[in-house]
């Protein structure tokens, strides 16, 4: 958008990514951890789109065809990330359902069968 620096978008994305990372480390509920991962993925998407819009590496694209491809590459990445995230959610929630069917509690710290 007019007057907004690229850095503002990247900073916001970075903040969201960091919050997601911290959330994965400090939370214990697998569903919340998974939501934090989704937050991280969305931060990544925002970064891609900001770079695609502002094209800081425009000088490296030497002709019109390369520039066109460069603009689209970021968006393509985002659309594929969304598709992959959908598949990941389907499988991940399936796993959470399956584990909950076996036991009532799904606190991540209670997952302690696998030990040396």
């Amino acid at each position, binding site marked *: 958008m007019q007057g907004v620096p690229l850095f503002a978008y990247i900073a916001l994305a970075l903040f969201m990514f960091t919050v997601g990372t911290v959330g994965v480390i400090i939370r214990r509920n697998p569903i919340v951890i998974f939501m934090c991962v989704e937050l991280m993925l969305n931060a990544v998407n925002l970064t891609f789109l900001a770079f695609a819009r502002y094209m800081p590496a425009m000088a490296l694209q030497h002709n019109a065809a390369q520039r066109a491809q460069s603009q689209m590459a970021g968006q393509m990445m985002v*659309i594929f990330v*969304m*598709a992959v995230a*959908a*598949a990941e*959610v*389907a499988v991940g*929630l*399936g796993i959470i*359902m399956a584990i909950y069917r076996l036991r009532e509690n799904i606190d991540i710290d209670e997952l302690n069968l696998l030990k040396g």
Partner: protein
Amino acid sequence: MQGTYLGLLFLIVIAAIVCGAMVTLSWLLGPKKKTPYKEAPYECGVTPVGDARERFPIKFYLVAILFILFDIEVVFLWSWMTAFKKADTNFMVFSFFELLGYMATWVVGYVYALHVGAIDWDETTSLAPEKLGKKHNADEQKENVA
């Protein structure tokens, strides 16, 4: 480009204002007489039984999971159709066959989902009855009906 979405933005803003106003105004203007009877949750005029936070079976969550996957397929189809309208023949032929290949994969997935009864309301069928030494799906369903 962004101007075309201005109407949508106004719609969202107006909807938010109307909703907010309705809730806030009724809360501000309405009379507030608190009695224990009024505070109790409304359950068809009967005294509520049990906690509201109860596990409840959602039979269709597998349907919901599958919905997401087919939802994302549609996003791809939508962008294809908008591009297809004004395209040259070369693109039309190429993308048509590409789309056929793409659809073929998820038709396989859909046939599989239908076969194992993943989107049935009552999941009575089992994934691998024969291999586990159970009876065939159809027999089992008949038993359940009877």
